[in-house]
């Protein structure tokens, strides 16, 4: 997003939100959640005030409005944002501002490109001396001179120069910058994400947030086989993801005893599947504590041994809640691209092991059987291991940074 710098700073951000419009009765609480999340997101930049009007929101801030607009592009539930410039609610002033805004927005256009626009006025002030259509025409007539290869198209314009006329002030905007779409975080329940330091699980978390889930995290830490840097990496990923979700909770579960027990007393090929079954158990218990209705993982089909359908079935059998897998059908490349877009990739690729080599099986089972898992676990004292791990679990609450 490039600011239209030869104009003075924008005064307001026009926010369009997508599906909320379809929700009828729930609209109020969704809008409420969106406003809360926008305020939290903007907080490090400026205090904002939000007004709701006719299916759109206007966000006002004392300063740094352009930065606020850019920040809002990361808030789930938002379809697009438009930084808006303000002037007196008077036709000549509006036309002049509109002309400047349009000219500036077209500045980087290739010299021979033909394009079209229309003006669209919304009038909140019925006392304004022109009707909306009259103002559309008045502004278009004054904006066109000096613009080459530009024409007015009322039906399918390439650009929409929008004007909002309010009693005390008028706003002009033409740029539209995309938001993530989706639904406001917190409107569609809570999910417990099994977060490793890898590329996939942060992407899964993001996708759930985008669809309105409040995501809590659980991560498993086998100190002193794994160092503190791994734990820090996971926490840093949570902080990075808080661009999209203002507040997050992380549960760090001590996993050493479970891994050493499995390594010492269970069949080697089944190790990874058994570790993951314990993770599902623990995650389910913590999800229950944290009022989450589903587990969330970054699993996708076929990449590693534990992600064949058979192994997934073995693992999932230990979960007490539905397991959501937003990346199930993603190619590795798709996951990487999305990770880069959401800003987690550079953290994920830092080389911090999440499983120590001493715990890895030399020939992991590819097509596991649930019965074999259950047999192996019968000897381990599952309940006691789970209880001890829960007792040692650390809870960390993380508030977002910019």
């Amino acid at each position: 997003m490039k600011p239209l710098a030869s104009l003075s700073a924008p005064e307001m951000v026009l926010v369009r939100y997508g599906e909320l419009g379809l929700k009828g009765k729930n609209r109020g609480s969704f809008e409420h959640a969106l406003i809360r999340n926008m305020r939290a997101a903007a907080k490090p930049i400026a205090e904002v005030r939000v007004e709701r009007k006719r299916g759109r929101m206007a966000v006002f801030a004392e300063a740094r409005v352009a930065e606020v607009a850019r920040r809002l592009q990361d808030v789930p539930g938002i379809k697009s944002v438009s930084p808006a410039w303000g002037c007196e609610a008077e036709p000549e002033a509006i036309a002049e501002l509109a002309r400047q805004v349009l000219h500036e927005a077209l500045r980087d256009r290739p010299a021979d490109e033909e394009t079209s626009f229309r003006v669209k006025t919304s009038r909140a002030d019925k006392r304004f001396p022109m009707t909306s259509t009259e103002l559309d025409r008045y502004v278009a007539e004054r904006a066109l001179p000096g613009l080459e290869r530009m024409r007015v198209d009322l039906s399918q314009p390439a650009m929409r120069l929008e004007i909002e006329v309010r009693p005390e002030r008028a706003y002009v905007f033409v740029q539209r910058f995309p938001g993530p779409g989706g639904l406001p975080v917190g409107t569609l329940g809570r999910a417990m994400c099994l977060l490793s330091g890898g590329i996939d699980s942060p992407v899964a978390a993001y996708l759930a947030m985008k669809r309105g889930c409040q995501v809590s995290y659980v991560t498993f830490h086998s100190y002193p086989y794994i160092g503190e840097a791994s734990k820090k990496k996971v926490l840093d990923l949570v902080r990075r993801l808080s661009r999209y979700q203002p507040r997050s909770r992380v549960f760090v579960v001590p996993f050493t005893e479970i891994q050493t027990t499995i390594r010492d007393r269970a069949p080697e090929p089944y190790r990874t599947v058994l570790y993951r079954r314990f993770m599902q158990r623990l995650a389910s218990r913590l999800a229950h504590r944290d009022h989450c209705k589903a587990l969330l993982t970054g699993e996708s089909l076929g990449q590693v041994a534990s992600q064949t359908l058979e192994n997934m079935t073995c693992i999932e059998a230990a979960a007490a809640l539905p397991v959501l897998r937003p990346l199930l059908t993603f190619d590795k490349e798709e996951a990487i691209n999305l990770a880069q877009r959401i800003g987690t990739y550079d953290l994920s690729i830092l080389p911090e092991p999440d499983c120590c080599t001493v715990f890895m099986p030399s020939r992991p089972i590819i097509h596991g059987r649930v019965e074999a898992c259950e047999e192996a676990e019968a000897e381990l004292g599952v309940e006691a291991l789970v209880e001890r791990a829960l007792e040692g679990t650390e809870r960390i609450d993380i508030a977002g940074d910019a």
Partner: protein
Amino acid sequence: MSTVYLDNAATTPLRREVRAEMEAVFAERWGNASSRHRRGVAARELLDRARERVARTVGARPEHVVFTSGGTEANNLALRGLTRRREARSIWIGPTEHASVRACAEALAGDGLELRRGQLDARGDLDLARLEGDLDEGTALVAQLLVSNEFGTIYDLPRAAALVRARAPHALLHVDAVQAAGKLALSLFELGADSLSLSAHKIGGPQGIGALVLARELPLEPLIHGGGQEGGLRSGTENLAGAVGLGKALELAESERARTFERLSELRRALRAGLERIEGLELLELGDPDRQQPGILAVLVPGAPAEVWLHHLDARGVVVGVGSACQANKRETSPAFAAAGLSEDRARRVLRLSLSGANTEEEVARAIAALEEVAAELATL
């Protein structure tokens, strides 16, 4: 009697709160942020928090902050690091850039890049028309200061940025914001800058630490190679205490900024009023009078070179600067003075008084009294 320190543009005393945080690092929280053990991870955590503070102040992402040994290194890193591209043909630097930008640009010109220099207009402001004319497809980098360390002029960066975008589509804009931090809002985004440089010791932080902050992922080649710290962009064991100091100093400066600006404006008014009454003294206020960093005030002194005035004042317990501190040890005067249309003779008579929010009206009064005395004494020569 304590001295009156009016050379804050050269360096500032370490603030109490900054020192406290740094001392905690020296005493307990020391460590190598790349070590694998808990002390190392804790040190990295501290470094990350400092990085976030810097990022937040200028509206950048933490991953785009590179800690350096100061403003000079940050400027060098920007100029060298951002112009190593094949299609780079020329770079443009402002007329009043700091020596680190000038010298680095001149070194790059020696390597084959064409160097274009901006000019000041008749009013002493940045000549934007000239800038516009100088820009073209081959311009790889534009380096323009936000606040002149010698005159205090605040240059219109947003407009300059718009021109760069319009006329030099491949160029990056680097802004030396060293003298602006703590007095002006520093939003990379609103300035239209692709990178900016900061230095801790101008805002109550320690010497030896600064930062280059990028507006987004940019192809930056490192100056210093080694263990790959700072994302490979600046190797060397991180200056943990320094980074903590910079983060704290910047955070404090930013939170107090509005008040500081007002305070400096008040003190400047009092100082100016006193200076105006001294026979022979000429205020050197370049640029738009509404766009001045209030803490910096340059004056032309009569009779003797500025350095003589400086020593006379120093003897009376009033500490001021001559031209810019970097030039104080050299025999040549800063090219910025030539850009401002000052002859060699007049350039040698420029005294710079630079205030901080910690100065008082009483100190200003003492400074004025001292200047009056020195004026009288030197007038008899």
